């Protein structure tokens, strides 16, 4: 947190000069969920959010649209072995003459899939448990808390290694599921804490006095107070899942029927790309993961500034 302080200062300055807009925005339409425009207004003026999302979106587009323009499948022996980057093979080829760029594009797809699914699974489990535990309290809370703590102290990565090694992971979605199942506890804790503090607010009691059920209260009264937080949580989970997947792939426990950035690095190391000087084989996937995850975290810091009500209430 401290490290981001100096960087946060310019952001604050921007917000200050934009104060007239900020004052106008709340009196405009801020219906249920309708403050999106205002949020967007601040988000588009936050350099961290803009840079982070541009990088992530660029990679996403490359992963989505790239395959349409590729001549070679990722595993095809398409060209001369160990060729450096050229017009035909922008990222060169592997020891076996596979197109590194084709592999990279395919790997990006897996990476985003893992982030989306792994982050999604963790977010859904964590929020469900956090909401219920925080809102219900009592014995249910104690039990869910126990479960959360158990999963929290389990060394998730080690368990993932064991699961991957013994059960085998054939597909990216399966890997994402495993990752998601072990990365929700901190979400549950944070959501529970926030729900707990919101639950004691009178407007929750007033909603109950309006005869609405628990689900409606959580959805309409509790969650909206945490939207920004939930969104940031998802961004972090997204990045975390990508990183975990890459680590697993790198040590050879990745999916067996798909290409991924981690797997590329794993193969590069396996076939001594480092010693043979085939830098184009391992730099792109390494840089790709670093840039995506790094951008996600930078985006998160920026979002923190965007959502901070103290910066908006001017």
């Amino acid at each position: 947190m401290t490290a981001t302080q100096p960087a946060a200062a310019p952001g604050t300055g921007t917000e200050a000069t934009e104060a007239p807009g900020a004052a106008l925005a709340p009196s405009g339409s801020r219906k249920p969920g309708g403050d999106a425009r205002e949020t967007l207004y601040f988000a588009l003026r936050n350099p961290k959010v803009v840079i982070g999302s541009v990088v992530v979106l660029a990679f996403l587009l490359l992963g989505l649209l790239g395959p349409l323009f590729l001549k070679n499948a990722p595993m095809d022996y398409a060209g001369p072995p160990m060729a450096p980057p050229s017009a035909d093979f922008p990222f060169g080829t592997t020891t076996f003459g596979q197109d590194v760029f084709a592999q990279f594009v395919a790997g990006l797809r897996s990476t985003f899939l893992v982030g989306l699914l792994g982050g999604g699974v963790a977010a859904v489990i964590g929020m469900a448990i956090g909401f219920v535990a925080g809102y219900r309290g009592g014995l249910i809370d104690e039990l869910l808390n126990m479960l959360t703590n158990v999963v929290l102290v389990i060394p998730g990565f080690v368990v993932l290694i064991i699961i991957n090694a013994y059960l085998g992971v054939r597909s990216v979605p399966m890997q994402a599921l495993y990752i998601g199942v072990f990365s929700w506890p901190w979400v549950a804790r944070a959501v529970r804490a926030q729900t707990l503090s919101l639950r004691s607010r009178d407007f929750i009691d007033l909603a109950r006095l309006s005869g609405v059920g628990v689900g409606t209260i959580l959805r309409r009264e509790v969650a909206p107070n945490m939207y920004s937080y939930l969104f940031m949580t998802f961004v972090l989970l997204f990045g975390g899942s990508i990183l975990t997947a890459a680590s697993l792939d790198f040590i050879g426990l990745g999916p067996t029927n798909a290409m991924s950035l981690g797997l590329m690095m794993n193969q590069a190391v396996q076939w001594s790309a480092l010693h043979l000087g085939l830098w184009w084989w391992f730099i792109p996937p390494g840089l790709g993961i670093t840039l995506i995850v790094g951008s996600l975290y930078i985006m998160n810091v920026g979002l923190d500034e965007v959502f901070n009500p103290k910066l908006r209430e001017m």
Partner: protein
Amino acid sequence: MLTIEALDKVYKTGTFGTSDLHAVRKVSLDVQRGEVVSLIGESGSGKSTIGKMVLHLLDSTGGSITFDGRDVTRLGFRARRDYYRKVQGVFQDPFSSFNPIFKVDRTFETLRRSYFPRVSGAAWREKLEEALGAVSLEPGDTLGKFPHQLSGGQLQRLLIARALLLDIELLVADEIISMLDASTRIDVLNLLGELKGRGLGILFVTHDLSLGNYVSDRVVILYKGRVVERGATAAVFDDPLHPYTRDLLASVPHLDRTWEEVEAEESARSARLAGRCLYHEALAAQGRALGDEVAAGNTPADDVGLVEHAPGHFVGCFRKAADEECPAGV
């Protein structure tokens, strides 16, 4: 209309409910239509706990709450919805009663979705404006605003208007005046008086004795979860019996009498009641009437009952906290 009998609440605190906090002890009271009953007690005496149990926001540990003869202590979701058509609450902190990220209109919208899904937009608008009129608010000044753009008094009146949208019969008003400044206080108090005139029963929770005196027909004095005295407002205020009530009243300025008069009266009363306990004296008297065995067995040490000292004026054992000794040494 509302009758509470021997209501108990024990909070489980600590991990796995390892320790108990007895917040409400065998509280009995009732509220009739067209009547304001004040529940008076210092902070932490369990007033809000009682209010929340009446509003079915908290489960009670023992005792019963009945509304028009029907037990409402444990209600299912459907039954609770019906209950809330007739019984509503307004809480102490108006700012915390509104979701800060939404306009105040949403509070009304929630109510409409829940109870009036088939009422047309225009008809609802009319109903809403009528309710706002009843609490002397201009729709244009208040609707479409965020909670932080309105004053505490305006928000509090919006909440009363919300309760009025349902044709309620009982309003639980939990310290609704405490957070308001003096000028708006009197408006809200007068509003309560008006509602009472329309036949509404009001359970008025307050820690402020003079407010209790001002609005209520009857008062219930609560100390550490126990009712120590209750009765018609005039009876309790003119002739406070329990030591706690006397202490409370001694600290309230009287406008109609001088300090010396009040002081003299109170010291005379203190002298008369010192070392006595009207509750146990009354029990003993009853016991003698019924026979000695009854007298011996009828006063458990943790007794939190009341005796009728004068018609409609009840008082409990003269010890203060429920776990202290009776000053009369019973």
